[in-house]
């Protein structure tokens, strides 16, 4: 064994009394230890000891969910740092943003990372949703986890929206004015909901403090809980979805068929499929190192890309919020521009009707789609119809977003981006 000096030092520490008290299993050298290390560490035990080779294929999952999770971690880290300087007051919020930009060491970098990670998280949540749809990974037994995923997407959008107001600049102020007015179009409860969100009739101090509390406490707490359940369900539903293989018979224990007059061990009661059930042993590899190292590598990659973005491109900060003059055109963040384009035609359909229809359709999808085949393969032939409908919706959403972001000038009039008007040359 030619262990590196670093590894030797680690193993030496491992053999001390203190080392043994912290890490029960050292760096694994045998298959037994590779299993033990996964179940003896709190952080590692959330993952299986062995993982199916199919789940490791980057060309299957593209690591999209994992990237989203990493971005969320980074958002928590940078967000907590920003909280040390940010003051949620209409008089001081904007100044604290300026402080972060010009006075605080690395303040601009941390804010940039937070902003970029937030935008990317929205993007990757949607990409992850597309991956799960196109690989039909929402089919039984994973229907409910798809619903949880939809909820997490909404939470991500909620976190982005509440975070948008906090800098108290023109963009923030008018995006929230427009956004809360949209909620006022909801039937029956609309005006009450708007009043509750703003804590009054106008966007002011009560609204800022409400959005702040939601952004730094309520929504992150709910999101963390939902993420935990989402990941737990991934394992309980048998790991990542994969195609049915010959011999890979799904073993489903029906509890009602078991005799009730004896005591069962946990393994006998565990319901549903596990990655091991019915799988061929040669399809599986040890999570340590195959899964764990890939995850670490991906995390480093995400941080590196985020750093490049944060160093290269500053988060925008417009002028101090001015309740009298909206910027012309007044635009929401890019991920809402598709909706804003719809809102420009009909406030009800853009702000309430279409979003509600979309969410309801997404939630019901795994229960409505009865076709059982095609799981675990990209663009399965059996799913031509479903994939076509989804692609058309996706295409329309992308086109609306592009129109809203690039083709709308002053007074929301049509404006080709290559024919810039002299006034509206602000860039994001």
């Amino acid at each position: 064994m030619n262990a590196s000096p670093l590894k030797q030092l680690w193993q030496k520490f491992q053999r001390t009394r203190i080392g043994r008290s912290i890490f029960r299993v050292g760096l694994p050298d045998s298959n037994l230890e590779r299993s033990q290390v996964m179940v003896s560490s709190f952080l590692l035990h959330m993952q299986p000891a062995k993982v199916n080779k199919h789940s490791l294929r980057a060309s299957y999952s593209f690591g999209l969910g994992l990237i989203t999770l990493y971005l969320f971690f980074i958002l928590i880290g940078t967000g907590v740092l920003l909280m040390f300087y940010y003051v949620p007051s209409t008089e001081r919020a904007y100044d604290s943003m300026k402080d972060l930009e010009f006075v605080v060491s690395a303040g601009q970098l941390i804010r940039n990372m937070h902003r970029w990670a937030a935008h990317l998280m929205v993007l990757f949540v949607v990409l992850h949703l597309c991956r799960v749809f196109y690989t039909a990974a929402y089919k039984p037994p994973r229907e409910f986890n798809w619903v949880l995923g939809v909820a997490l997407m909404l939470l991500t959008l909620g976190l982005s929206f509440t975070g948008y107001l906090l800098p108290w600049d023109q963009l923030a102020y008018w995006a929230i004015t427009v956004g809360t007015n949209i909620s006022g179009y909801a039937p029956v409860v609309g005006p009450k909901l708007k009043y509750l969100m703003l804590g009054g009739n106008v966007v002011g101090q009560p609204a800022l403090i409400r959005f702040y509390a939601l952004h730094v406490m309520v929504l992150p707490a709910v999101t963390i809980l939902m993420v935990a359940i989402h990941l737990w369900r991934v394992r309980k539903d048998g790991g990542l979805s994969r195609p049915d293989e010959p011999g890979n018979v799904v073993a489903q224990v029906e509890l009602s068929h078991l005799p009730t007059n004896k005591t069962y061990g946990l393994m006998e009661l565990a319901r549903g499929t596990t990655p091991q059930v019915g799988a061929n042993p040669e399809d599986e590899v040890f999570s340590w190192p195959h899964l764990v190292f890939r995850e670490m590598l991906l995390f480093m990659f995400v941080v590196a890309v985020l750093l490049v973005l944060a160093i290269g491109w500053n988060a925008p900060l417009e002028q101090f919020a001015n309740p009298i003059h909206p910027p012309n055109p007044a635009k929401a963040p890019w991920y809402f521009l598709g909706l804003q384009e719809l809102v420009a035609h009909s406030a009800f359909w853009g702000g309430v009707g279409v979003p509600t229809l979309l969410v309801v359709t997404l939630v019901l999808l795994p229960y409505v789609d009865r076709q059982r085949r095609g799981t675990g393969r990209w663009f399965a032939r059996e799913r031509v119809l479903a994939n076509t409908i989804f692609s058309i919706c996706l295409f329309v959403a992308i086109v609306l977003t592009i129109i809203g972001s690039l083709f709308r000038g002053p007074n929301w009039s049509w404006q080709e981006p290559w024919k810039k008007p002299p006034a509206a040359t602000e860039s994001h």
Partner: protein
Amino acid sequence: MNDPTPSNGVSRRAFFQLFLGWLAGLFAFGASAVAAVRFLVPNVLFEPSEQFKADKPEDYLDGSVTFLEDERVFLIRNGNTFRCLSAVCTHLGCTVNRAEHGYHCPCHGSVFDDQGAVKGGPAPRALTWFLVTLSKDGRLLIDKGQPTAPDRYFVL
């Protein structure tokens, strides 16, 4: 054990225990939920008053449309009549701009005519007209809490 046990197996005592238990639990949970929601609805608003005083009538030129920036309204004089039009777009609350004829909203492109009626864009309603009166010290008094008809003038 004198409890009469009916055929469905639930004794009267068990029934009352269950009933009261659920009642108490639901009451505790419901009351807390109502209190929490009610807590979030503010009782006192620290917002500017909906009534405000503009300048004296003679300070506005005949035929002028004056934008009162802080109040987001237009004050319109025609001869010795005065009217006040809201500058808040009825679509999503942006401030409309005065155009040559009528008003344009910069956010989603709603267009209103001189009477505040919708001429184009997504706005669902006409701009609101507010009641104009005269205060005791001879200045125009406008109440943004009192919408009024577009043909209702304050005549000096």
